[in-house]
């Protein structure tokens, strides 16, 4: 029974890993379809919760979802089976492609196609950011953080400043902690004392 459940997890997530292109959000739709509608492993509400957790924890969103569903279904082993399942198909495909990549790039029209892709990738990344800005809470503090981070990142790309995005993110997290947690608490306590 237990083995059956594990192989179900493994194969279902292999299917998800094999057939979803375009990363995170496409995968969430697929996971919802298979794990909520068809297999009824988790409820729709749980799925919503996972999406929020996945977005606020590091790592690929699809991996986060797979680990959660696997854990809920069959504990640690289940989490492992689902995670391996979702990674395995693309791993094999990509390993094979990467072995032949150099040979591919020697063919003239493939190189031209890649030069085309180069233009598309920058647009896709900028578009993802614009979508995030549309959904963002437009208050002064987040907007300031956004503009400062954008400026610092541009400067470090163009002028070669030695600031890594990790340092920038840690700084922003600390600013968030101060403005949204420490400061309001401090003011509240100050108010009571008077």
């Amino acid at each position, binding site marked *: 029974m237990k083995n059956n459940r594990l192989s179900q997890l493994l194969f279902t997530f292999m299917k998800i890993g094999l*057939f979803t*292109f*375009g*990363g*995170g959000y496409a995968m969430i739709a697929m996971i919802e379809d298979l794990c909520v509608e068809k297999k009824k492993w988790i409820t729709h509400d749980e799925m919503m919760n996972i999406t*929020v*957790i*996945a*977005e*606020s*924890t*590091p790592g*690929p969103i*699809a*991996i*986060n979802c797979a680990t*959660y569903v696997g*854990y809920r279904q069959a504990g*640690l082993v289940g989490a492992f089976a689902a995670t391996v399942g*979702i*990674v395995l198909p*693309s791993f094999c*495909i*990509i*390993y094979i*492609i990467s072995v032949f*990549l150099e040979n591919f790039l020697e063919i003239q*029209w493939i190189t*031209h*196609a890649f*030069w*085309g*892709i*180069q233009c*598309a*990738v*920058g*647009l*896709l*990344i*900028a*578009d993802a*950011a614009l979508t995030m*800005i549309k959904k*963002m809470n437009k208050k002064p503090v987040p907007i300031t953080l*956004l503009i400062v*981070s*954008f*400026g610092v*990142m541009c400067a470090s*790309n163009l002028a070669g400043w030695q600031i890594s*995005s*990790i340092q*920038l*993110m840690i700084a*922003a997290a600390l600013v*968030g*902690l101060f*403005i949204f947690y*420490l400061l309001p608490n401090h003011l509240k306590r100050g108010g009571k004392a008077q």
Partner: protein
Amino acid sequence: MIWELFFGFLRVGCFAFGGAYGAIPLIREVVLNHGWLTDESLTYLIGVSESTPGPIMVNLATYIGSLEAGLPGALLATVAVVLPSFLVILAVTALLENFLKKGWVQALLRGLKPCLTGIILATGCYMIWQSCFSLEPGFQIQPRPLLLTCILAGAMAVFPKLRHKKLSPISLILLSCVLGIVVYGV
């Protein structure tokens, strides 16, 4: 060498909030600092990762690992990028169900999210700038990439108005391949 790959991608896995696009600025930094790939070949790989199934971040780790150190490199880089989120989710679901509802965690995330958006936007703009203009020697416009970028941006802007949904990344990549073959071929 192989352990550098492991720890480089472990760092990516630990700090990549907000999905694949959040990870790209980080991966660029790690990869360029170690000198594993040039900026140009990294951009190719991002395109290829978009067009192969699976999470983009994991795909990139597999590609870079394999190009740098063959199968062992591919395995280690992939495990490294997956490991942090695997462990974090286990911890969150098993031990700390309410961890994310805590005030100070929410405050950290509220600072983190707009900063991340800014970083992603800057990276996208920089990549567009880099393919369309060059500074050495002197400021120059690259006409073909600029033309391509304008057509693609136009397609992204017009498509939702006609079909009431976004142009999917994979169709954009396919379109850019065709346009690349046409524009550079003639």
